[in-house]
């Protein structure tokens, strides 16, 4: 058997070197360094941890009946018995914020994950294969983007009673579209890079190219986009609740709580309004800041600053 020519060995080594350069495997120390140097990011992580603890651990410590309505306790101001007062239907407002936070965060995370995953797969396939397949897949995306979201939601809400899984599905169904476009664009760009062409020349199959060379290179963009999707989903869910299209009672979310507070805006029941508003703003802001920090980590150029 003939041994590989020295030149071929050199080619392989050069390619591997190039590949390593263009596909940085970040060591954990540098990631943590970059992240921890961003004080805003650290703060946002802390806030998110507190928000999660408030929503999911809070009810274990602070017990309240969120399933029953007691009109005799409607609109009570904060007191030792009800730390944040009561809702228009007599439910403890602090407990309500915790329960509402659970569904809000569940929807945010689930939509972020689902829309990012589906958008990645769709966009990568469309961008990499190209041609008629790309055209068809992207026209599907365009067609779905042209459907008015509110119409879609109102129609669904009229057919079935909204639940958290349904709302996750509905928001995900529209959220993945922009991700798919983004990923397709990145894929179209990356597949023209020399190292991808070289890998192809060395006999890498499509699956390997997508898995090894293309997907990892859109990962940074994708994760940043994913965090934005989480924030968007939280806002959309809150907006749906605000518009009365959220989950049905006794379930709730922060948007629904906010809407109830707005209904009592002129009565001065601040405890029904401000806490939900602050929680929404804090959470969305923290997720967005976290997204920026993650982008910094993945952008080597920025990380070197």
């Amino acid at each position: 058997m003939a041994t590989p020519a020295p030149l071929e060995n050199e080619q392989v080594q050069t390619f591997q070197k190039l590949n390593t350069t263009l596909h940085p495997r970040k060591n954990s120390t540098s990631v943590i360094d970059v992240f921890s140097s961003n004080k805003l990011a650290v703060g946002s992580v802390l806030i998110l941890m507190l928000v999660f603890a408030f929503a999911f651990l809070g009810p274990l410590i602070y017990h309240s009946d969120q399933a029953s309505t007691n009109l005799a306790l409607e609109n009570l101001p904060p007191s030792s018995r009800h730390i944040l007062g009561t809702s228009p239907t007599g439910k403890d407002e602090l407990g309500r914020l915790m329960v509402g936070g659970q569904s809000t965060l569940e929807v945010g995370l689930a939509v972020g994950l689902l829309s990012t995953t589906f958008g990645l797969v769709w966009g990568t396939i469309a961008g990499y294969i190209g041609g008629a397949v790309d055209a068809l897949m992207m026209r599907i995306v365009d067609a779905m983007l042209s459907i008015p979201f509110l119409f879609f939601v109102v129609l669904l809400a009229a057919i079935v009673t909204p639940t958290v899984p349904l709302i996750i599905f509905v928001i995900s169904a529209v959220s993945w579209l922009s991700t798919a476009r983004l990923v397709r664009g990145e894929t179209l760009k990356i597949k023209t890079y020399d190292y991808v062409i070289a890998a192809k020349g060395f006999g890498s199959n499509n699956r390997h190219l997508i898995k090894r060379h293309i997907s990892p290179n859109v990962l940074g963009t994708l994760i940043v986009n994913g965090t934005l999707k989480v924030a968007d989903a939280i806002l959309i869910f809150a907006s749906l609740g605000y518009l009365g299209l959220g989950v049905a009672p006794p379930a709730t979310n922060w948007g629904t709580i906010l809407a109830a507070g707005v209904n009592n805006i002129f009565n001065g029941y601040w405890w029904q309004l401000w806490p939900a508003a602050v929680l929404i703003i804090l959470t969305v802001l923290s997720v967005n800041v976290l997204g920026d920090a993650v982008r910094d980590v993945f952008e080597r150029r920025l990380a070197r600053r």
Partner: protein
Amino acid sequence: MKRRIVKGARFHLASFKAVSLFGALGLVLASCSSSSSASAGSSAKATSSTPPNYATFALHSGDTYSWVLPLPNQANYEPWDQNAEYGMYRPLYVAGNGSQPVINFGASMANPPTYTNNNQSVTITLKPYKWSDGRSVTTRDVEFFWNLYKNNKSQIATYVPGNFPDNVSSFVINSPTSFTLNLKSPVNPTWFTDNQLTDIVPLPQHVWDKTSLTQKVGNYDLTTSGAQTVFKFLTKESSQVSTYATNPLWKVVDGPWKLQAYNPTTARTVFARNANFSGAIPKLSGYVLESYPSQTAELDALRSGSLDYGYIPISDYHIASTLKSQGFTIAPWVTDYVQWAELGYTSPKYGPLVKQLYIRQALQHLVNEPLYMSTVLHSYGQYTYGPVPNIPGSPYVSPQEQSNPYPYSVTQAKSALESHGWKTGSSGYLVCSSPGTGGSNCGAGIKPGQKLALSFMYQTGTPTLSGQVQSFATAAKAAGVDIILNPQSQSTMFSVGGVCPPGPCNWGIILYRTFLWNYGQGDVLPTGGQIFGKGNYWGGGYYDPVAQQLINTTHTQPGLQSLFAYENYVSQQVAALWFPTWDWQISVVSNKLKGWNPQQIFGNPQPSRWYFSGGA
């Protein structure tokens, strides 16, 4: 009911989010803004958009004036539309006289009717009214109405099979000012006058009897096909809201008001005084119907002085004292309506459940009216135990209907259900353990092991309503009944609930926010034919031969005993779930505007009586 069309509602995700978020933040910020101390009632003077001596009146948020023809179809059958229509085209007999649920004969177009031939003929004499173009209102105008109504009845919302015009055997013109309706059988004169003759509106035949705008007026209504073509043409023109202010059809009126301007985007409608009105000329030069997208916007308009006659929702009753100090008078508007939740009799899923009398009675036991009145309604309403409005002093309410036959009791509700074969299942809710149709069985159509669960659709955005519904669901849960709450927007309610029955319906119970129905707008005697009679639209498809017979008797037997028998039966049968009827609104009126009190019993504003202090 009307299906609203959101103009230009083209939402994309991004814009939706932005709009929603900024809207929410805007409202949040509004909560901390200081209250305006602008003086109230500036319309006595000219504002930028309201002419001098014009008063402004706010419709409830979301309501818009969008129909002019006083022959409404089901999609355009709204009290605020009809009231404005009747301001231009006065009906033969005007329903409601101040706070009294009676005919206002003084304001009517005709003298009180004369019944003869054993109450089988009624003769009506017109008063000497004139159209705004100087022509007299004659029996030809009534005949024109008759022909259009008779030949297009299935498309007209006020039509009830068997009632007018089906119960009329002939329409006879005696003279230009007198006509006779010969009836197929003797009638209760009070019912016929109050609920049938009030539907008749003389229409300007000499202007409207044509099939296109350019066509010359003829006598097309005298044939069936001609009447149908004319009706189709008028209906089409009435749907062209952008032409309201310019269409020559709507220029000739016999009422006190003429349509002066209309904004098809905002539905802001300006009416000018009809200087040639044959009755008492209004003191105002005109009035404006304002439509606001939200209650917040409406309240802002009040505070800024650009609105003279507005309202606050019951949930905001706290701010009444503040508004009072800012130059407004606060007054609850009590109306002759009844609030009920329809039951889904025609629903394949829930119909078998709500058709059982004992289930309906148990559900009624779970409605805690005293609690709702003392909490979310803040006493702005009337207890309701049956189909007749329970307003203080009403002669129409039977002694039985003045007390609750099914007072709030979770124990009694559960006991009634358990005595019919329902047992608590593993989920904590009742399941049918004794299917069948016997006295101690669950009832026809109910399967063994079936959970006692009902979907309850209700309108979002009103704490007054959602508080009651959620409280009801909590009580039901305690009794073992699973109430699956399904809050929906107003437009969805109208499109999903409004067309059902004939269904099939996917709701077991449905409750509207502002659906405080009377007996067909314009009906005075609360006999309920349109609501609980055969083929009804708003009774959930309820039909009971006994109830139907009792309703029919109210149409033929003079006196109130037949009415009492009907209402007692329907109340006892829980044809619908009775909820407390809350006041139409808490009115907030500028102290500069006078003559608005008493507020009309059917919820219709009466601008003909209004005037500004020190004004014209």
